[in-house]
Every structure is written in structure tokens, then in C-alpha cells.
């Protein structure tokens, strides 16, 4: 059972955005200032919860060899087949393929909110980074807790925790093991928080 922390609006958005970034693209030394600002944008409690990954990422991005090691880890885990597939469709279809039903469903979901993914975006709509970004968007747009929880449960929690679990034990995962553990924890917190908020109403 995860203890629901006193997560405020800003922390929620920042965490969704940060965790979307982790899975969106490899991390490079030039990204560190932005990452650092992102950690700084968190409340102290939330920042503290991210301290371990912050330290590890900072170390990796401040040294050329460590940066390359992190990039190799990223490629193994997210670009090459021996890693994990960060697409809902691959995990929710009878065949592990892109753009199957789960992709259609989440794409439609965006449309019901009057949105679509920016056309020159490389990742498809059901990529983890896109779904996490959308959660940030829902919060920022002031969508109801019900709508937030609905999206979280129907489109994110239905597949992503399983993939994150795999990452936690993947032999090639080091820094991304810590990242996935943190993402996993955050998603669990989020579900409980939203359920509690709904129950309060």
C-alpha cells in the first residue's frame, strides 16, 4: 500500500512532465539545466523523493563516459528489441504490434478532448511519454478528477506499470531501474490520490 503524499497541483504536473521526459528521448549533458530546473520546480517533499534519481542523473550527465553509458543503457532499453516497448498497443493487443486497438482508443480519447498529437511528433499516441504528457495536460486544463482518473486507469495503468516492473528487473537497466521505480511509485500515488479526491466529493 502506497501512502498518499500531500501532492499538490504543481508537483503533479511537474512529475508527469518529468517522467514523460525520461521515456521520451535519451538524456544528454545539454539537458541537465532543464532537468535541474524541473527538480527545483517541485515542492521540497517531492524533490526529496526524487533525490536519488536526480543525483544519479546529474552524475551521468556531468561526465562524457558516464553520459555515453547512460545513452547505451537508453538504447538497449528503449530503442532495441531486447529492451521494453513503451507503446500501449504492443502490450494490449493479441499480437505485440504498434498501432493496434489500444492506440486507436487513446487517439480517440484525445479527440474527445478536442486534441491531437502535434503532427511532427515521432512517438505514436500510445507511447508512455505521450500518455504521461496528456495526464499533465488534463491537470493543467482543469479537467475533473474523474476524467483524470478515468484516463489514468483506462490508458496508463492498464499497461505501463507492467512494463515498468520489467524495467526494474531488466539486466541492462541501472539508472532507468531507479527511474522506473520512481515512476511506478508516482503512478500508484496518483491513482490513490485521485480516488481519495473523488471520494471526498
Amino acid at each position, binding site marked *: 500500500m502506497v501512502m498518499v503524499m500531500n501532492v*499538490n*497541483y*504543481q508537483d503533479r*504536473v*511537474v512529475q508527469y*512532465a*518529468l517522467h*514523460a*521526459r525520461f521515456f*521520451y*528521448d*535519451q538524456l544528454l549533458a545539454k539537458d541537465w539545466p*532543464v532537468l535541474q*530546473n*524541473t527538480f527545483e520546480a517541485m515542492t521540497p517533499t517531492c524533490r526529496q523523493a526524487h533525490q536519488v534519481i536526480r543525483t544519479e542523473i546529474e552524475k551521468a550527465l556531468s561526465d562524457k563516459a558516464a553520459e*555515453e553509458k547512460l*545513452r*547505451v543503457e537508453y*538504447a538497449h532499453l528503449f*530503442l*532495441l*528489441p*531486447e529492451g521494453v*516497448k513503451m*507503446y500501449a498497443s*504492443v502490450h494490449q493487443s493479441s*499480437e*505485440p*504490434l*504498434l*498501432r*493496434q486497438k489500444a*492506440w*486507436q482508443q487513446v*487517439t*480517440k480519447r*484525445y*479527440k*474527445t*478532448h*478536442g*486534441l*491531437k*498529437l*502535434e*503532427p511532427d*511528433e*515521432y*512517438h505514436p499516441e500510445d507511447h508512455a*511519454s*505521450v500518455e504521461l*504528457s496528456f495526464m*499533465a*495536460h488534463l491537470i*493543467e486544463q*482543469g479537467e*475533473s*478528477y*474523474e476524467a483524470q482518473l478515468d484516463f489514468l486507469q483506462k490508458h496508463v495503468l492498464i499497461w505501463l506499470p507492467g512494463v515498468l516492473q520489467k524495467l526494474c528487473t531488466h539486466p541492462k537497466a541501472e539508472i532507468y531501474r531507479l527511474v522506473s521505480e520512481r515512476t511506478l511509485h508516482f503512478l500508484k500515488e496518483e491513482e490513490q490520490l485521485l480516488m481519495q479526491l473523488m471520494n471526498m*466529493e
Partner: protein
Amino acid sequence: MQSTKKSTFEMDRRTFLKTAAGGSLAAGLGLGIPRFVHAEQQSVIEPQSKVVNTFCSVCGGGCGIRAHVVDGRVVHLEGNPDDQAAEGRLCVKAYSSIKTLYDPDRLKYPMKRTNPQKGEGVDPGFIQISWEEAFQLTAENFQKAIDEHGPESIIFFMRGQDFANRLRNAIGTPNHVAHQSTCFTSQVASWFAQVTGGGRPYVYDLENCKYIMGFGFDGLGKSKNMHIRSITRALANNAKMVILDPYMSVTARKAHEWIQIKPGTDLAFALAMIHVIVSENLFDASYVEDMTFGFEYLADFARDYTPEWAAEITEVPAEDIRRIAREFATTKPAHIFTHKRDAAGPNYANSTRLAQAIVILNALVGTIDREGGLLLKRSFPTPSFDEVFPRPDFPERRKERIDAWEQREIMSRFTNGDFATVADGILNEKPYPTKAALVRKYNLLAFPEAKRMEEALKKLDFIAVCEIYPSEMAMMADVVFPEPYWLETSGVSERDFFSRYPQLAVRTPVIEPQYDTKGFSAIIVELAKAMNLGHYFEEASGGKWNNAILEAAGTTWDDMKDHPTGLWGDEKPFEGKTSFNTPSGKIELFSTVMEENGFDPLPHWRPRREEPTADYPFHYLINRPPMHKMTESQNNRLIMALYGENHAILNDRRAAEMGIREGDEVYVESRVAKIKLKAKLTAGIRHDCVCVFHGFGHWSQGLSRAAGIGANDGDLIPSMTHEEMKALHDPGAGACMLDFPVKVYRA
């Protein structure tokens, strides 16, 4: 309820927005995460469907396709009913290509290697890089090789492609190595010399044939759309089919007669047929008179090649040979079909002679470029790449090549190169050191003696690979350039395997590329720019070249891109050619071109290179599963569900004598390597043969479905030294893909 929740939230949000400087926090953080834009809000969303015209590129057939796309997803591919090649159907390879399109194992970004070690089991330590870095790195390494060892130190491994050919010439390297000597150069040499003065045709009018014959021809097993359609129609139309093959292929299974000929002896059978047809005056006198040259030499030439003589060699009774020759000559139209890796493909040292003999036999019965036979392709005029995209002069370049291809008297005029001899050239620096390679869509497993080729590639300092999958070749790469899948691209096709009349098919992208990929022509142009050779490609692009092809045919890209059928060219009645591009203007039964090039103008008997021995008592055969495409399809789940593993296929009785049961693991060993496979037993193979299907034995962990399944048939094929190839004195410069014996024993 809802309003309470909303207002609580809005308070939060207002507080928060102060810290986000009045904008979206997620965007304001500058993390560069995915962004959403406005779309028309739809509460009930109707499916958006469309049909896009394209053509298949799994093989060179180019069958026209109507791709059905629903909500941005390709849901079905349908043969274009207006297309002469597809006739509304596709083969299993095309239908299953949607699985490849959506395979998450595809290459997604340019990558570079961080681990300098290379080879099987070595982690390349790839990292994602930008396209700019990929081009720069490749250009720097190519330039280093040029500066230190000359432009010839760079090898291009790929099929011929106009943009790549120009870059190779602009660099000034003669080394363009392609796979054809492992596939069909024997047939090209005979057709070049005897009929076309160019390449060989692939347009089979099987449908109108009444007597289909094949020396290892597996038109059904290759499962090409047009072959299956026309063979089944011919059979329904009461055509007789006779297949000579040591293995009961799919086509042999459907044949009226399956003759288990001894491997590598088909030439003797063909020579005896010539003997019977000429000595019994069964030939088509008017066709021979009007269309051929050199008939007067045949009687003498074939005198001693009696069916009795051939029976000794082929192990086929003389009366069967005689009967089949008579049937072939008297059933009209009759034709011996030959397609790539059959007995007349470059499998044996005598394969080119068999190809010559087949041309003679088909000419004797009058079915070269006649209905019911093999037709020369009808095509629109093709534009000249140099006229469309004028260029500066190319630099001088050395003539000698790393595969000694320039020594092939006939084949050197085709820039194919030789998979069989290139490892010798690289490893032994014959005739000079090579240092870098640009590879496109060739897998390491496709080379004869793949393990030796792996050693050769390890000797190179730098390899750039253009691919869609993390194949074994990609695992050897220093830089990987990811290409889009054909369903994501544009193009124009002449459809090589079925063009009874000129017709072009146009491809427009069915969906947008899913990953950060670039088309091959664009890769070449960008690489040229990075190498300061951009002036060779001014104004050049794949799109302009597509338009130029269409303009030469009387239309334009703009007119065709939204054309209702995606096809250009009206049906025309077939008219057989009355002259051919040879010195005599006729089909040369006696080939003056062969003679001028120092080869036998007539295909006298020549045995295969290596017979079985006491130590290696088995003939080695290779076939392909109908649903697979070489080494490219083993990560496709649908195809693997249909055919998921290769085996050592053995005669059941012979296996019982050897104590081998179905499923037992056995070694198949040649003089260069051994592979381990499970035994599959059948009565449908000669007692002295073992057959292995091609395409398996992948070791790249990047192929999550294919890795570790079966074994690579090509590991066993001995590669050749430059000298061995020269000594063969084969006009087709064949790689002798089956011309060696093997042994089989329990593992």
C-alpha cells in the same frame, strides 16, 4: 458535485500558474515532451477510412496494391484489380507485410556503435545519434579511408540504385558488390549472350502454356503472386507439368511428373532432349528458321548426348528422357521455365551451360517471346539519370576490384560483383586493402560461408548500414541509417515479373513514417553533401526521379499521385518480337558472344565441381519456405506462425538406416563449417540428399522473434578465392551455391 471539484481545482491552478509565469507549466519547463494541438472535438467519432494506391516491394514483382487505411492504421492490403501483375491478388508475403510495418523491433533512429569489438555475441553498444552526426561520422571515416588507402578502399554492398551508383562513381571506387552471383548470374550470362544483349527477362506466360517443364523450378514454392496464379490457371486448363528436382518442392508436388534427378546433372538431361528433338526433327522449323542462328551446329553437337548417355549421369531412365523430350516438342506451346535459384541458377559449375541449353530447347520449340513461354519485358522508355540530373565528370578509378569481378569476361559489364569472392579480397587484401563499407539491406547470413564473411567485415575499419531491422549486418555496423518501410514511401515500379504491356504503378505513402527514418536516395544525397560531393547531386531527389520516370512514359507525378488506379499504361495486344539484340539479330543457339569471350559457344557437357565422397556422401540442397523472403522475414510473427524453423530434411528410409528419427538433432557438415538442426524426415527427397531451408540461424538479439531459431544454410557454402573463381571459367561467374557435398550425423 462536479462544480465543487472544479472550483477547488481552479484555485490550485491559479496559485500554480503564478509560478509557471502565466503559461502551461509542463510546456514551460522546457523538457520538450510531446505536445498536443487543437483537433476538431468529436464526441462520437466516425471511423475515417481511405484507400491508398501503392505497390508491393517485398520482392521485385511490384504487384499493385490498394491499401485500406482506417483511422490512420493500415488494416488490409488488397491486390489492385486493374494491375496486370496483381490481378486483384497478392501473395502471403505481401499480406503479412502489415506485421512488419507495425513491428516494434524496427530501427527507430540513426545510431552509432560505441564498442569497437564486432561479431556474433558482441554488444555493439549502440547509441542514438542525430542524422547530421550519422552523416558526418560516415563522411569522416570514408574520407580517412580515401586519404590513406585510396577511393577503392570503400566497398558498396547493395543492389544497383541510381543515386548510390552515382555516389560510388563520384567517390571513385570500382567496388560495388551485390548478391546476383548467388542468385541468377548464370541465367543472365546465357540470356545476354544468346537473346537480349542485356539482362534476362522474368515475365512468364505460364497461363497459356500447355507443357510446363522445370529443372528445379519451384514457381509455386517461391509463392510469387503471378506465378501461382498462372500455374494454377494452366493446370486447370489441362497443361502438363514435369518437374525435375531431387526434392519434392511445392511445385513438384503439384506436377504430373516429379523426376528425382541426381543433383547437378540436369545439363545432361537437357542435352539429351536437344539430341532427341534435333535427331527426330521435332523442332518448330519455321521459328528456328526465322528466329534463330546456329541451328546447323546442333546435330553434330548433340550427336553423342543420347538419352542412354544421359541416363547414366542423371539416374533417370533413358525411355523417360526420350518420352519427355518428345512430349515437350510436340505439345504446343511448351516451355522450360527457369527462375533464379533453380538448377540453372548459379548452383553448380555447369549451371550456366544448363541455362544455355534451356535457351536452345525453348527456341527449338518456338516459345521465346511467344505466348505460353518466357516473354521479354514490355516497358516504357526509361529516362537517363545523367540527363535528368546532369553531373560533373567522375574521377578516374582503378579497374581491379576487391571481388575480382573485372576478371569475369561477360559478367563484368554488369556491376553485380561477387558475394563468393569478396571475403577473400578483403581478408587477403587482394588486390589492395579495403577499409570501409556502405551496406544496404544485405544480411551477413546471405553470404556464402557467412562466418568467413563476418571475419572479413571485422577487418574493415568502418561500416555504415542502411536497414529497417537490427539485422546481423546492422549489428556489425559503426553507423546505422534507419530506412522507412515501403508502405511509408513513394515510388514508381515497372513490375519486373509481369509486364506483357508497358504499365507503371505509382506508390504514395500509405501512412507517414513511424520512426525517424530517411529514404535511401535522401541518405545518399545527404552523405554525398557531407563528403563534399554534393555537386554530383544538385537538384537531385527521389521525388524528381519518380517524376522523370513518369514523364518518359507520358505522364507526371502530379497527374498520377491521386490517380484512381495508381496505374499508367493501357493494355496492348501481345506481339512477339522478330529480332533480338545479338550480333546476328537472332536467338543464338550457337553463341558468338560466348565464343568471342573465350567460352564454349555451345553448352557441351561439363560435370559439377564437387561430387559426394566417402567422407561427405550427401548432396546439399537449399530451398525456401513459400511465405518467407530470404533473411528478411523471420521477425514477422504471422510468417513465423506459418513456418517458424528450418530443419535438415532427409529421406525417411535413409535416416532410418542411419538411426536418425524425426526431430533428432543432427549436424550437417561441409568442408568449411557445420550446422545443427532438427531432422525432418520425408519420402519426398532423394536418399542421397539433405535439404535445408534458407533464412534462419539469426544471431542478432535485435531480432526478438528470429534470434536463435534454426541454422544458417549459407554457413556451409564454401566461399571462393579469386583464383578458384577464375579457374572455374564460368561465363555466369556463379557462386556454386550447392556444388559441394556434405555429411550428416547425429548431434
